[in-house]
């Protein structure tokens, strides 16, 4: 009886720890909650194929502890860390044209690896970069020494190994003042479109070294939810 009880307790303990880590991955107490479902724009024709067309819009902020329109960018966020916001998980349909608009409020610098200054995986291999003053440029790369963040996305192993997306976001010289991001009016806008892959989980993260410690990839870069998240392709 004692042996059986021992095995039962051990099984429950191991299963509990495993369940905790799985749950923690998606519902970290300090991570933004919720999944933003891409807004439908109807259909679009890409290379002769008619695809569902959806849109996503999100921002990058210099102060994770700030708020936008009364909503926390990153609940309990570190004020010295930047963050994507207001959510870090997105849902898009499989094999659809996804048009993304990113408003980049943060400063930046040089990439560790200039390869991430190139645009990869978008329709046409380019992105549209709009300065705070409204000047628009269509380009397949940006200056690797003037990068704020990158939006880099790849699939979970076994989902769609050919899928890869990388778009550099230019550094913003006009940082908002104060700890709040409500007044973050000056920003770059980067717009790009990509065709989503097969159904499954995809991870996205920033490849600009905006953290601390080893090669500036510790700190915020090693914490889930600030510069990283998931895209659920359904």
């Amino acid at each position: 009886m004692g042996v059986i009880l021992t095995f039962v307790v051990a099984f429950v303990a191991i299963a509990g720890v495993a369940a905790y880590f799985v749950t923690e991955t998606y519902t970290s107490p300090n991570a933004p909650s919720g999944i933003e479902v891409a807004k439908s724009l109807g259909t679009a024709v890409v290379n002769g194929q008619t695809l569902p067309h959806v849109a996503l819009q999100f921002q990058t902020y210099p102060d994770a502890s700030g708020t936008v329109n009364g909503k926390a960018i990153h609940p309990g966020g570190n004020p010295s860390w930047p963050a994507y916001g207001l959510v870090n998980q997105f849902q898009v349909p499989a094999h659809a044209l996804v048009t993304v608009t990113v408003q980049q409020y943060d400063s930046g610098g040089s990439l560790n690896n200039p390869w991430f200054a190139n645009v990869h995986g978008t329709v046409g291999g380019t992105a549209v970069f709009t300065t705070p003053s409204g000047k628009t440029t269509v380009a397949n790369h940006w200056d690797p020494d003037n990068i704020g963040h990158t939006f880099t996305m790849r699939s979970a192993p076994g989902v769609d190994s050919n899928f890869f997306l990388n778009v550099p976001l230019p550094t913003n010289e006009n940082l908002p003042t104060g700890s709040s991001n409500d007044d973050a009016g000056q920003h770059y806008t980067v717009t790009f479109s990509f065709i989503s892959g097969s159904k499954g989980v995809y991870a996205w993260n920033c490849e600009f070294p905006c953290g601390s410690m080893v090669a500036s990839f510790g700190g915020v870069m090693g914490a889930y939810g600030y510069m990283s998240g998931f895209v659920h392709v359904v």
Partner: protein
Amino acid sequence: MSFEEQVDDIEANTLLGGQPFFSRAGGKIFIIWLVFTVVGVLIGAYAPHHLLPGLLSSEGGDVWATVVVFTVLAAPVAAFVYAVGFYSLIAWRHRSDDPDVPPPDGAPQRGNGPVTVLWLSISTFLVVVLLFWGITVWSAQQTTHPNTLQVNVTGQQWVWTYSYPGTGVETRTLELPLNRPVQFNITSVDVTHGFWPAALGVQVDANPGEVTVIRTTPNKLGSFIVQCSQLCGLYHAFMNNQAAVVTSQQFDSWLQTHGATSSAANTDADISSGASTTAMNK
């Protein structure tokens, strides 16, 4: 059973006790060892067929053979440890009704010369054989060949990038021509990663600030996965990419579609990192 009776029982059941061989503890352990050894050897001989990926290089074949030989040679040793442990747990478990009474010790083995010599001789023989085998296989991977294709491999959280010096091509997918020797110059720009195209029989750490060199020759067409083998942070599990061994014509065409500015006939070690170089044969 009194304490003295338990001691007598253990001594009578030892390898050199007075009972017939297969009735003594040593005989029973031998039978268990034999069964475990056969199982271990069968696993070592056949499991790699199912666990290892399809091999696309001659070096991969050497690594595969090493895994098989090392597992088969280790099977009797591991089986002996498991057999003694298994038998001890069952036959020599503490049987006293009083949990406060400790089990008696067995006969001391100190000073048993033949056992010590046998143990040291077998261990030395196995270690020397494995060392010789390992160095021989490893040396084969360090051999330089003419017309070697240079590929610079850079690891970064959580992406591999590959550049082909002299061509202007830099990609996230690895493409290699058939039957042409390849030299990988591997480094990292942040933390330590592990460059692991298992199908090529290659697994090397990508260390920040250093370039590590390893060579292989793809000898079969096919696709495979490059995976990071060092836990490198949040999305370590996502740090993989598609790779393929293709014909030389397909490779040249692939280079062109990826913006090659010249042919792939780069044979000089044009290592992009300014860091020190660590060749594996140093």
